[in-house]
C-alpha cells in the first residue's frame, strides 16, 4: 500500500543560533507507525530539532524528506532546492504539532479551535468540519466542552484539545514537544492516555518527553540527544536497561535521582 520507505527522514540537519551550534548533522529516519521518543538533558536541542522539522526554525543546512519526497534542502542558511509551493504545503500538512504550552487560541471556543484550520486551510465545509471536530473531541473525552473557551479548561483538558486540533488536519506524523511538562502531576496521566491511544491506532509520533515511563511503555525507539547530537538510540529496553553511552548513563542517573 505505502509506496515510500520512510515517512520522515532528515539528512545532516544542522542549526546555528549565531555562533552557537545547537544541532550537529542530525540523521534520523522514521518508518510509518513508529513511535520515537527523544530524551536528553535541557539545552540538548530537542525542541529545536522538532521545530526544525516543522520549519518553525530555519535550519542552517541539511535535508528533510517527507514520504521520501524532498521537503527542504538548505546549505549555509540558504535554500538550495526550490520546492513548488503546492507540494511544500501538502507535505507540511502531513505533520501536526503539539506544544508544551498548548497554544490554544484563547478567543475561540474549543470547537472553533479545532475547526479553524480545516475550514480555512483545507476549505472543508463548515458542517463537515464541525462533525469531524466533534468526533475528535469525543475521542479525547471533551465532547461536553465544545462551547467553552480554553481559559475555562484545566491544563490537561487544554492539551487534549490541542491534540484534537492538530489531528483535525489529518496529519500522518505527530510531533509532541514535552506535551506534559507544563501540567500539574495529576493531569499528566489523561494526556499520556490520549497519546497512547493514538500510538496504538498506528500514528507515527516523534515525542520529546521527560516521562520515562511513557517512553519505556509506548516507544518503539528511544533517542538520547545531548549537545546537538543523537548520542545513542535503540529500543526502550536497550536504552533504559543497558545504556552504552556515558552521556546516556549520566542522564538516566540524574533523572532517576530526581524522582
Amino acid at each position, binding site marked *: 500500500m505505502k509506496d515510500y520507505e520512510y515517512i520522515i527522514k532528515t539528512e545532516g540537519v544542522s542549526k546555528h543560533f549565531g555562533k552557537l551550534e545547537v544541532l550537529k548533522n542530525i540523521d534520523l529516519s522514521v518508518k510509518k507507525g513508529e513511535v520515537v521518543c527523544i530524551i536528553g538533558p535541557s539545552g540538548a536541542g530537542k525542541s529545536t530539532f522538532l521545530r526544525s522539522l*516543522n520549519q*518553525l526554525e530555519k535550519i542552517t543546512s541539511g535535508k528533510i524528506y517527507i514520504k521520501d519526497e524532498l521537503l527542504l534542502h538548505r546549505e549555509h542558511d540558504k535554500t538550495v532546492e526550490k520546492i513548488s509551493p503546492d507540494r511544500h*504545503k501538502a507535505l*507540511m*500538512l502531513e*505533520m*501536526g*504539532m503539539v*506544544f508544551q*504550552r498548548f*497554544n*490554544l*487560541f*484563547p*478567543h*475561540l471556543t474549543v470547537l472553533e479551535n479545532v475547526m*479553524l*484550520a480545516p475550514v*480555512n*486551510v*483545507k476549505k472543508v465545509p463548515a458542517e463537515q468540519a464541525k462533525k469531524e471536530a466533534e468526533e475528535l473531541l469525543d475521542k479525547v473525552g471533551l465532547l461536553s466542552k465544545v462551547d467553552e*473557551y*480554553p*481559559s475555562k479548561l484545566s491544563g490537561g483538558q487544554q492539551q487534549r484539545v*490541542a491534540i484534537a*486540533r*492538530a489531528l483535525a*488536519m489529518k496529519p500522518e506524523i505527530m510531533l509532541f514537544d514535552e506535551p506534559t511538562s507544563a501540567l500539574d502531576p495529576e493531569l499528566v496521566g489523561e494526556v499520556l492516555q490520549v497519546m497512547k491511544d493514538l500510538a496504538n491506532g498506528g500514528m507515527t509520533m516523534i515525542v520529546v518527553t521527560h516521562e520515562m515511563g511513557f517512553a519505556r511503555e509506548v516507544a518503539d525507539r528511544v533517542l538520547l540527544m545531548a549537545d546537538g547530537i543523537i548520542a545513542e538510540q535503540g529500543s526502550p529496553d536497550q536504552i533504559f536497561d543497558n545504556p552504552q553511552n556515558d552521556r546516556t548513563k549520566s542522564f538516566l542517573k540524574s533523572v532517576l535521582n530526581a524522582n
Partner: protein
Amino acid sequence: MEKKTKAAIIAIVLIVIAWAALAAAKPSKEVMMSKCSPEIQKQIEAEKNSTRKRITVTYNSLGFINYCAFSSSSKNADGASKEVYVGFAGKVYSAKEGPAKFVSQMVNYTYRMLGCGENVFHGAKLTILLTTLTVLIGFILSIFLALGKISKNVIISKLCGAYIFFFRGTPLLIQLFVVYFAIPGVFGFAWKDLFSAPDTEAVYMGAFVAALIAFSLNSAAYCAEIVRAAIQSIDKGQNEAARALGLTYGQTMRKVIIPQSVRRMIPPICNEFIMILKDASLVFAISLMDITTISKNIMTNELSYMVFIPALIIYLIITAFFTFIFNKIEKKLSVYE
C-alpha cells in the same frame, strides 16, 4: 447587578417624565416675546416693515427652558441696551440679575456651543462628527500601517515607518494647513468645489472634508503604534500554533492575532479619541467652529467667564459617553478571559 439595572431604569424613566412635563409647561415663544418692556414692543412694531433693524431678538429653546433676548442699539429707560428673559415651568422671569441671569447665560451659551439651529459643521455636532469619523478612518488605516511596519519586507516597513515618523513628528495644525491650503493650491482646486451646495454650505463641507483627511492621516500614525504594540504583545506561541496548522500569514493575522489584539487596543484607542476630541478645536484655523472656538468667541465678545462652565460640562459628557461605549466594547471582546 439586577437591582442596579432596575434602579437605573427607574431613574431614567423618572427623569424622562419630569423632563417631558417641564418641557410641556414651558411658556411659548409668543408669551416670551410679549414680556419685553413697552419701549421695545413699540420699536419692534415700528420696525416691522423696515429692513434696518435696531432691535435684535434672540430666541433659544433648550430642553425645558426658553431664553429670549432683545438687544437694542439705543438704551432704554433704565439705561440698559439689553433685556433678557427666561421661561421655565409656565412662568417668564426677567434675567437682569441673580439666579435668573445665571440660568439665562447657561442656556444661551449651551445652545450656541451645541450648535443648535445650525448645520452639522458647527459646535458640538462638528466636534463629535469629526472625532468619531477620524478615529474610525484612522483606526482602519492604522491596521495596514502597523502590519506594514512589522512586515519583513524592508521597503514596506521603512515606508510605513517614515509615514508614522512624519505624522507624529510634525504639528497637526500644520498638517491641517497643508491639506486645506497647500494641496488645493498645488493641484489647482478648492475644497468647496467638491460640493454643489450653496456657497457658504459648500465652504463648510469642503473645510470639514479637509479637516477629516488631515485628522485621519494624523490619527492613523498614532493608532498604528497602538496597533503594532498590541499585535506584538500577543504570545509568539499563537503565531507558531497557527503556522503549524498550515494557516497562511494573512489568515494567521486575520483569524488569530488581530482578534486577540483588538481588545488590548481599546483602552489606548479610547485615549486617542479623547485627544482628538480636544485637538478638534484646531479647525478654527480653517474657519470651522467647534465647542472650544465658540466658547473662546463668547468670552472675548461678551467678556463672560461663565461660558467655561457649560463648555467643560459638554466636554465631560461627551468623554463620559464615549468612555462608556469603549468600556462596553472592551467587555464584549473579553468574554473569553
